[in-house]
């Protein structure tokens, strides 16, 4: 029995070895290596469909298992001489590391259909945005209506402040634990909510999408004290109206659950919580307002691509061309739109895609994207470990500390990295 089994295995192996070169002669083989586990079955199916419709090429998609070290796995593939044709980067850090392997795609058709491509320092489009993600201050429309607050009027700091204070006064009758569901603790693993995402409002808010002047000044160590104080007051307002248990030691589940169960009217999270909300059966209408820390009117949300597909410059020219064709097909065809939106539930980064995602916050992002006036992400450009190691404790201390200390600490932190 065992002998038979091993014989059969050997036969299968031998056959597969024989089978490979036979097809390689006529087809261009290329590979995709990606790390979003949640979209693995969908992108596999899309690859299969692509192969059926394009008999002259053969794409293989590989996904790295949950929570694994993608950068490490990619380095291992490089060492094993199995560098994929298409791989992912997650921002400037990834680009700097892999720039010798990243091809220029400026002439590809998909570039004209998106605002979210990754550009190298010379202004060449090199990264294909996998999806769009975004955040603002999420609200529960049902609670706001009961409290007599119209979210459309919440466009300035004073309006937002008045609304939060009004709801805070009605906590009992609305059945709320707290007005805002926000977490900032290092222990609970929510430091990124405030020190990356909410703080991004300071970097990008009230500016054109591609205007990075505030962030650039910050990185030179020039901290606009007035703007920083206004931001700190806004953040303190959110903190003061949060459930201290969620704020100071809650985790992601606790933060999302408080909002999903109607125990909080606002939440500081992005559209990635849609699947969690569906699981928690939160069916109430919801939407986003901006992080309003100034008196200037604003409805913009903070949206960008969190990761990009790049094409391996060291692959053969045929493979590179096939890879770019594949990305064009993903962005511009109906099959691609169906995969990105209907199947994978992502917010498409391409303007020509007409399908709408199902999730309520994702829908809100699509609407905001059509409306325009949105803001970019800059937190990914901070030095490695700065957001978590330096800003994390500063943002956590504001929960029990003062606005003055916060402004001084943030100023000192940016001056320190500017001097290096």
């Amino acid at each position: 029995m065992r002998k038979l089994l091993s014989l059969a295995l050997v036969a299968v192996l031998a056959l597969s070895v024989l089978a490979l070169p036979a097809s390689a002669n006529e087809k261009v083989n290329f590979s995709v290596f990606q790390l979003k586990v949640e979209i693995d079955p969908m992108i596999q199916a899309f690859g299969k469909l692509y192969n059926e419709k394009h008999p002259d090429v053969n794409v293989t998609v590989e996904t790295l298992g949950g929570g694994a070290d993608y950068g490490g796995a990619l380095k291992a593939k490089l060492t094993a001489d199995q560098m994929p044709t298409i791989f992912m980067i997650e921002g400037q850090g990834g680009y700097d590391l892999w720039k010798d392997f990243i091809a220029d795609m400026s002439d590809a058709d998909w570039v004209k259909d998106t605002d979210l491509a990754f550009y190298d320092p010379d202004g060449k489009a090199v990264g294909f945005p996998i999806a769009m993600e975004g955040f603002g201050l999420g609200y529960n429309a049902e609670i706001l209506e009961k409290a007599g607050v119209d979210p459309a009027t919440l466009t300035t700091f004073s309006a937002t402040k008045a609304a939060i204070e009004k709801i805070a006064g009605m906590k009992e009758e609305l059945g709320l634990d707290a007005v805002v569901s926000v977490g900032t603790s290092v222990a609970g693993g929510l430091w990124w909510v405030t020190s990356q995402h909410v703080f991004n409002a300071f970097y990008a808010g009230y500016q054109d999408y591609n205007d990075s002047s505030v962030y650039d000044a910050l990185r030179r160590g020039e901290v606009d004290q007035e703007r920083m104080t206004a931001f700190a007051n806004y953040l303190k307002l959110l903190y003061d109206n949060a459930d201290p248990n969620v704020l100071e030691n809650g985790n992601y589940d606790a933060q999302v659950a408080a909002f999903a169960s109607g125990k909080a009217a606002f939440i500081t999270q992005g559209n990635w919580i849609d699947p969690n909300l569906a699981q928690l059966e939160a069916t109430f209408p919801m939407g986003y307002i901006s992080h309003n820390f100034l008196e200037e009117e604003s409805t913009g949300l903070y949206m960008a691509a969190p990761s990009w597909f790049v094409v391996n410059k060291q692959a053969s020219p045929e493979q590179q061309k096939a890879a770019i064709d594949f990305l064009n097909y993903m962005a511009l065809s109906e099959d691609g739109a169906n995969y990105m939106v209907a199947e994978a539930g992502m917010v498409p980064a391409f303007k020509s895609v007409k399908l709408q995602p199902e999730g309520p916050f994702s829908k809100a992002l699509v609407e905001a994207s059509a409306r325009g006036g949105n803001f970019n992400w800059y937190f990914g450009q901070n030095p490695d470990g700065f957001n978590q190691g330096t800003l994390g404790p500063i943002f956590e201390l504001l929960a029990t500390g003062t606005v003055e200390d916060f402004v001084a600490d943030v100023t000192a932190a940016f001056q320190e990295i500017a001097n290096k």
Partner: protein
Amino acid sequence: MKRRGWIDALFIFPCAFAFIMVIIVPFGLGIYYAMTDWNGVNPIVNWVGLSNFQGMFSEPQFIYSFLITLMYTAINVVFVNIVGFGLALLVTGKLRLRNIYRAGFFVPNLIGGIVLGYIWQFIFNNVQVDMGNALGIAFLQKSLISRPDTVIWAMSVVNTWQYAGYIMMIYVASIQSIPGSVMEAASVDGANFFQRVRRILIPMMASAFTITLFLTLTNSFKQFDLNFTLTNGGPAMRFMAKPIRSSQLLAMDIYRTANQQNLMAQAQAKAVIFFIVLVIFSLTQVYLNKRKELEA
């Protein structure tokens, strides 16, 4: 029979080879990298001498981590050994079901540090806070691991819960190896329980104390998994006018420097200091304990 050097060498070779490859070479490389500007990826490595060592002692987080690790170690050595010794006395006494207790006290040690951290995080953040609210005790209404002044103590409680059973086993083995006649003779002579423990048991267990103190000292000093899952270094506090993390022990500080800031060389320099301090402490401890053993 004539001994042949090369045959001896051949027998030692597998062991020596493994030891050199996994201990000696990485150790040497580690010391080398501590004096460079290596970031973990870049193949170009420059020699920077001792500047990595100078930088770390002006870094508030590192100084604090250093102090808090010493404090955590001191608390743990006392807690774990007192509790472990107490339990050992309990389960070697005339207690019904003592074998079940023995197994029961040991079980926490079988749970991995990662799981343990998450379980206790839930206990502190939810159970303890709910209990505080229900009973109206202000001290318990805020999670002990979200207060900079209590977090180290809370971690020590968890570590003691996990580790005391293991230390208990060593004490139990040692107590059982003491001839019953000695204890009996003492009680016939009129020594009460405490006198017997103080005058006979403890001196005769001197070699066990050498082991347990060494284990608790090094274990606490190198603590990482529990630290990582239970508090992740938090909560934040202010030290030398800078916001830092109040429960970030040395091992975790090194880990963060290496993996989040990608400052591999600085982390390596910290690891060298970490090693030297640990060696000094544990050798001193073993030396003192050995002297006690000889006296006894």
